[in-house]
């Protein structure tokens, strides 16, 4: 037998052995250990890549900046009115909640995770974080950024890592309501390229630009009232059974580095 044939046999044998060990799960402890060791380096490299991306991101032209500023002023006016109304409601709610002892029963706590890697395929918006089943994470849990901006769901979970499918991914679907209403009005679907669209909205629902969409709370592990995005443009003929709307996502999905997973307190590891 020649050296080349021996090498080929060894390589194919090693691949078969690896495949069998992987499928039977015998390699899992080793895989988890390697992931755990490499996670900090991966996180550092992802962070370096993100910083570089932000530095080289395309600057807007003066005209685009003016248009953007005009849009933001319109949004600000609309949000200011809501803010005053909500502030009054919040004060009222605070008094009521304290009275009921509601704050002690929030039901969720946040597990912070750093992004280790992102999908190398531009059409996909999927990231891996350095938290897993050891931290009480499960499939379907909500992932947020900052003050409750919903960015995606956990779609697969290992012992020390988890995969988060972001809102803009084409596989992403989340049930939404209009802010302040607990009524399910449709789904927000990812369209790739860091954009999303609200679909399956019944014609009788009123939806206008700058309306805030929030999670409806109809999915088991996703609490209600997490901000999903702002309505940009509503589309659809009056004769269509459903209408759809372009959504402006509020979190910069392409630059996320630290995320929080909402874990029901009952699943908190001891």
């Amino acid at each position, binding site marked *: 037998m020649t050296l*080349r044939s021996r*090498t*080929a046999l060894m*390589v*194919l044998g*090693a*691949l078969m052995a*690896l*495949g069998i060990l992987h499928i039977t799960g015998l390699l899992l402890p080793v*895989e988890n250990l*390697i*992931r755990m060791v*490499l996670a900090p*380096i*991966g*996180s550092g*490299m*992802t*962070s*370096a*890549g*993100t910083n*570089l*991306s932000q530095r*080289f*991101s395309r600057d807007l032209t003066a005209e685009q900046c003016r248009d953007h500023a005009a849009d933001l002023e319109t949004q600000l006016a609309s949000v200011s009115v809501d803010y005053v109304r909500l502030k009054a409601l919040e004060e009222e709610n605070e008094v009521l909640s304290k009275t009921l002892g509601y704050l002690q029963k929030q039901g969720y706590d946040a597990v912070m995770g750093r*992004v*280790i*890697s*992102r*999908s*190398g*395929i*531009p*059409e*996909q918006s*999927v*990231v*891996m974080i350095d938290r897993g089943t050891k931290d009480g994470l499960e499939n379907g849990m909500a992932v947020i950024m900052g003050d409750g901006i919903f960015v995606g769901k956990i779609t697969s979970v290992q012992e020390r890592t988890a*995969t988060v499918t972001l809102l803009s991914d084409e596989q992403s679907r989340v049930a939404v309501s209009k802010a302040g209403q607990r009524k399910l009005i449709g789904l927000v679907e990812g369209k790739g390229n860091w954009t999303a669209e609200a679909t399956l909205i019944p014609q009788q629902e009123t939806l206008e630009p700058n309306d805030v969409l929030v999670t409806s709370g109809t999915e088991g592990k996703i609490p209600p009232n997490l901000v999903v995005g702002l309505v940009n443009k509503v589309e659809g003929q009056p004769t269509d059974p459903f209408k759809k709307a372009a959504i402006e996502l509020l979190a910069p999905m392409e630059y996320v580095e630290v995320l929080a997973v909402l874990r029901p307190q009952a699943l908190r590891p001891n």
Partner: protein
Amino acid sequence: MRKSSWVLLGAAALAGGIYETTFLGSAPFPFYYIRPVLPLCVMLFMLNRRPAAYVTAFLAGGVIDLLSATASGWVIGRWLIVLLVVDVLSERVTTNRSLYAAMALVVMARVLDRVLWQLLSWVSFYIIRQPIPVDSWRSLVGILMVDMLITTLVFVSVTFLTKRFVISVNPRKERYE
């Protein structure tokens, strides 16, 4: 190869794997085309370092499979199979050690890797109804261009630093050696 060379090679392979799975996904778009591991493995064949090429593909591919945010498409297996084919091609087809031979091998390796990836995606779709995400064919052109640039850089550097690819003419015999 000396022990220290193996250690360096292992570290470089791990760094290459980490680069291709973590940095590449978050870096600006031009970096998307820069995927140095496969061309470097092929160059190791050109330098007659066959075990080193297999070890590099094994380590880098393993890291990519483990740290990839999406289903990576069994990179470790694909790359090792590609290198087995490159091994045969470099011995039977592109037998000379020229820059063009290196480029041809790198292009063949990359295209074969892409074909295997596509096949795996189809097989995955038919078995578990979930296709493995695959790069677009259009992006392959950009990746191939960068591959050839990397190959040229490595080939020229090796020629400058060592005498491996230099064809010498013996003044006494007056013919190539």
